[in-house]
């Protein structure tokens, strides 16, 4: 026992010294202001953040979340003082209802005029964009490893293929996966009809799930990049951030022909933000055509939200804006979310 205590004591002393060394190393640094951003994983390239930091002589702290729900729960639990957040439309409307957002003074946004009017028109979640500025419009799709899967239909029906069993993965995201099944069955992704929801649940449980390796929103892109998974439903930006550039030509990313749930992710300023002006500057900075083009090029996105950026884009995109035509924007379904919860629970829990 004495020896154990001695070892532990030595170890803790060592740890303490290490901590002190690290702390003393990162003291200093008298930067004037810090902008706190809470954003999706893989959504704003570091180069863009660095340019902003340099131009305005500020520091940006960039924290990430993997789903709207996670972001919302963290804010609800309190204690987080972020300035800018990037929620999807359904969550923008929830956050407006809950009085969590600051109104945006559009007169200070010179580049607001660059935003595609068609995208603005879709912003039913915040009519007139009083609280939110669109960042990007897109949809989750399907990535296929072409070296392992040669022939396939560009449809959600790919998840019904038994020969790809245990080599396919879908997001651990209720609205996304349920939305895919609803669209495949020809219903709305925002349906509140119990029968349609049940039908989608049964399709996933009985036809898709037996072929899936797992539901995963955290590491699906890593599993795809390692070759473990051949077909992954997910976001293009996550997939291509993990796949080696040399192997990009082996990946086919498509939005299934039936369409799926699409999203308009927006930038909002959280009530109580201490850096409102700086936050507005950041939003305006993003919509500079050259910056927006840099962001889209980095992820292989089409420049969906910013019109002048389309001409400045250098790289190719993983999908075209037209591919989103059959998609449908996810909306908040309010108390009817319970119906989705119950359906999703049977999907996640069962064998």
């Amino acid at each position, binding site marked *: *026992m004495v*020896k*154990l205590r*001695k*070892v*532990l004591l030595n*170890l803790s002393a060592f740890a303490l010294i290490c901590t002190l060394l690290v702390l003393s190393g990162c003291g200093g640094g008298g930067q004037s202001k810090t902008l706190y951003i809470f954003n999706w994983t893989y959504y704003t390239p570091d180069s863009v953040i660095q340019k902003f930091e340099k131009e305005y002589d500020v520091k940006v702290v960039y924290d990430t979340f993997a*789903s709207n*729900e*996670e972001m*919302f*729960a*963290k804010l*609800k639990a309190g204690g987080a003082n972020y300035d800018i957040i990037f929620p999807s439309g359904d969550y923008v409307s*929830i956050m407006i*209802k*809950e009085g969590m957002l600051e109104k945006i003074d559009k007169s200070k946004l010179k580049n607001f005029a660059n935003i595609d009017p068609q995208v603005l028109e879709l912003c039913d979640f915040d009519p007139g964009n009083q609280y939110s500025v669109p960042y990007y419009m897109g949809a989750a799709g399907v990535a296929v490893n072409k070296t392992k899967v040669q022939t396939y239909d560009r449809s959600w029906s790919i998840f019904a293929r038994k020969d790809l069993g*245990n080599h396919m993965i879908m997001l651990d995201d*209720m609205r996304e996966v349920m939305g895919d099944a609803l669209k495949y069955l020809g219903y709305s992704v925002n349906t509140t009809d119990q029968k349609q929801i049940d039908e989608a649940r049964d399709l996933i449980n009985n036809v898709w*799930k037996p072929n*899936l*390796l*797992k*539901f995963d929103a*955290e*590491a699906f892109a*890593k*599993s795809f990049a*390692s*070759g*473990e998974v051949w077909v992954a439903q997910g976001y293009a930006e996550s997939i291509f951030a993990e796949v080696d550039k040399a192997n990009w030509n082996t990946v086919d990313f498509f939005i299934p022909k039936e369409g799926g749930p699409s999203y308009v992710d927006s930038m909002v300023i959280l009530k109580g933000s201490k850096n409102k002006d700086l936050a507005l500057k950041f939003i305006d900075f993003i919509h500079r055509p050259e910056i927006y083009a840099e962001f889209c090029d980095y992820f292989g996105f089409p420049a969906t939200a910013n019109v002048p950026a389309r001409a400045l884009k250098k790289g190719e995109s993983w999908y075209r804006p037209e591919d989103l035509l059959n998609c449908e924007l996810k909306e908040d379904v*309010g*108390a009817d*979310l319970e119906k989705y*919860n119950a359906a*999703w*629970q*049977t999907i*996640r*829990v*069962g*064998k």
Partner: protein
Amino acid sequence: MKKQVGLLYSLPQILWLLVFFAAPLCIIIVYSFLKKGLYGGVEPQFSLEAYTALANPNILLVTWRTLKISIIATALTLLIALPCGYSIARSKNQAARLFLVIVPFWTNFLVRIYAWIAILGNEGFLNDILRALHLTTESVQFLYNQTAVILVLVYMYLPYAILPLFSTIDKFDFTLLDAARDLGASRFQSYVRVLLPNIKSGLMTAGLFTFVPIFGAYAVPLLIGGKDSYMLGNIIADQLTKTRNWPLASSISMTVTILTTGLVFLIAMRKPREQKQVFDADPAFLQAVPAGKR
């Protein structure tokens, strides 16, 4: 006078327990009896809904699965930790060996989970080796099932079982084993009938240290598990972050807390009898009592 000073000494511990244990627990208890808010949070209105919802067959199934995984993982951990603790206790350089047990803690928990993914994956090291040895051509699916979850849980909590077992075995008087052999016990018998009863308290502690955290496991089933490995920890997190049902998350947490503390109490109640057994085997005691009275 003396008493007051004692209270002062324990003040930091009392404060720590109040702020980081009692207060959060009270919040969870209160939340579990409230109505759920539409967008997360709670409405200040009494409701038993969170507890009636526990009878949901899905939640019962997950509770059963969690219990099963925890019991298997704990049993395996103890089975491996026992010889480890024994060999460390009997070794000449205990400090160095203990040090080796503690070394993995220097690497972050999540990094170690991802390391297991790199080992067990279809394109991982283990499959590479199997293919190189021509034992298999197709990849063997090691990851994303309950077996993988149990394996990684055993790996994660092994040190928590080795350390208490070591410290109990270290105090054990090994001459008793020789005595048992002298009296005709086989090697195996001497371990089972003399060593094991004497280190029972260490086994109990090690069992608790592994069972309790495994019962609340979240990251391992999330990252290593597949469709069949959803555990109570995952349900709680999902209710809180995804389905926005905070009262249900609280009532499930309460169930987990009650089940695990219940277990601790059960074991604590058994303590007196154990100590008697330890005493029984003590040679000094045996000598002190005349043979006829034994």
